[in-house]
């Protein structure tokens, strides 16, 4: 099976406090730790496991700048066979549809049976996979937490739905899936693994290579534009208990007793 996984380099929210910069034009990017989007990492692990079971190839792809190459290499160290970087000044400021348009152009140059994305990334829109599927006229399933290959032409997938339930579907190949966290346990990648793939070639494709009309992507084509970042005024929020740990615990126990949290 020929599998393509779309990945993204994002600020790691478990390693950083995300703050808005002074003008509200962006988040504070100094000293941010970046990593591969958590959902994408599960998708790559799933692709590797499928390949190891039924044979084939795993390609990882991203739209980004030079620095995005490091996450492709990380996923190749995990076990992906090839990486492709889609990079061009014309791609900057693309909205979800712009990104899907860029990915579609590269996908149509190849021949993939299964295309995966993470269920969502840092923007939280969970949109690129579904858009890509519709543009490619392929069937789509989101929030996938189980994949079983039935034969060369179809797979069975579980989708995570409300209440911890799982919706089982049969889907014809080729198809696009967005992958939910928890579908597997992504393998650890050490520094030695990354060194091993350090010299592998990662082709960079721009708008010209992909025959993309620059007007169809980037900021000018975006129907949805972010205007600013801000921290909403959420009212008073929680009453923060202050003082020494003993004082805080004393206050807390009193409150818990009053609210029925302690007998």
């Amino acid at each position, binding site marked *: 099976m020929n599998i393509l996984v779309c990945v993204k380099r994002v600020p790691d929210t478990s390693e950083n406090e995300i703050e808005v910069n002074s003008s509200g034009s962006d988040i504070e990017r100094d000293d941010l730790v970046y990593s591969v989007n958590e959902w994408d990492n599960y998708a790559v692990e799933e692709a590797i496991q499928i390949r190891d079971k039924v044979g084939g190839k795993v390609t990882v792809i991203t739209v980004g700048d030079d620095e995005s190459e490091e996450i492709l290499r990380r996923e190749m160290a995990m076990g992906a066979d090839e990486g492709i970087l889609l990079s061009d000044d014309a791609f900057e400021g693309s909205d979800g549809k712009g990104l899907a348009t860029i990915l579609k152009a590269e996908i149509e140059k190849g021949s993939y049976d299964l295309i995966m994305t993470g269920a969502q990334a840092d923007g939280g829109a969970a949109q690129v996979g*579904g858009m890509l599927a519709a543009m490619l006229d392929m069937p789509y399933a989101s929030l996938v937490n189980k994949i079983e290959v039935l034969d060369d032409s179809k797979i069975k997938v579980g989708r995570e739905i409300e209440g911890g*339930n799982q919706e*089982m579907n049969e889907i014809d190949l080729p198809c696009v899936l967005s992958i939910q966290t928890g579908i597997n346990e992504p393998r650890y990648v050490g520094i030695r693994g990354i060194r091993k793939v350090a010299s592998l070639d990662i082709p960079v494709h721009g708008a010209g290579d992909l025959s993309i009309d620059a007007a169809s992507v980037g900021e000018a084509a975006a129907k949805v534009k972010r205007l600013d970042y801000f921290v909403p005024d959420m009212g008073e*929020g929680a009453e923060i208990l202050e003082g020494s740990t003993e004082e805080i615990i*004393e206050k807390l126990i009193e409150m818990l007793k009053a609210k029925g949290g302690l007998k």
Partner: protein
Amino acid sequence: MAQIFAYIIHKDGVADDSALELAVAAQAIDPSASVTAIVCGSGIDAVCTEAAASYKEVWKIDSADLAYPNAEVVRKALVNILPKGAVILLPHNTFGMDLGPGLSVKLDTAYVADVVGVEGTDGNNLKLIRQEYSGMVSTHVNADISGGAVITIRGGAFQPDESKGAGGSVTDKSGDAGDLGSKRRFLEVVEAEVGDVDITKSEVLVSVGRGIEDQDNLEIVEELAKAMGADVSCSRPIVDAKWLEKSRQVGTSGQTVSPKVYLACGISGSFQHMGGIKGAPFIVAINKNPKSPIFQLADVGIVADILEFLPELTEAVEG
């Protein structure tokens, strides 16, 4: 302003809570708009009648092919039925996320996901509020809706309008749905496994999140719960890491709980997690990050590392 449509999610013949919230979101987008509810499914007259109490117009799309709401099939029907330039509202749940992005491509409209607020409309520009980075920051976005829009609305972001005085009428559009064959076929729903403890019945929950850092540290949470006579629940990362059973997970993709007291330990408070807490419990948040969104949602907050704080609390509770 274009016509606004609201997609009604329903189960077992009853409309989802989102049905009443979308009506309010539509009003916020354009107070003068006529808003039409869309009900897809098989044998859906009761849901249509219910929707007509809150929407002036209801479009019914009834087909055996829609017996289970498969987003791929629903999309085909909607593309055939919706007028050009329409604004379509969906709930930002597992169905809306499945349907929305592809629908916006097929209708060639703007797509805005997980909207939490509406600032207003200026001509073809619709200004909306959404969040990024797991709710750590908010953003204003501008959507060019000259060609229509597909917008998913976060559950709970708009207070539902319970007045039910619309007195709407139902129009049967089933005949316009077209070919509903699909390359994705629904098989079955596998119900969540029932765990050793039913946290939906717990009065006091000690809930643990990413801040616990390591599986071995779970012990301190279990000890506190034992001392308090509480049950242990958790947020999604703990289940993803396979440290606790799925049946212990609180959130929209896990269990919906309604305890009297909820102790959120090392939990950031994503909307998916908070969406699983109902009935206005007394929420105590303990988190070492003072900027964590959980402090906006809790009643009482303690800025502390749970690895140090919880053992001391346990000791004090034990007396």
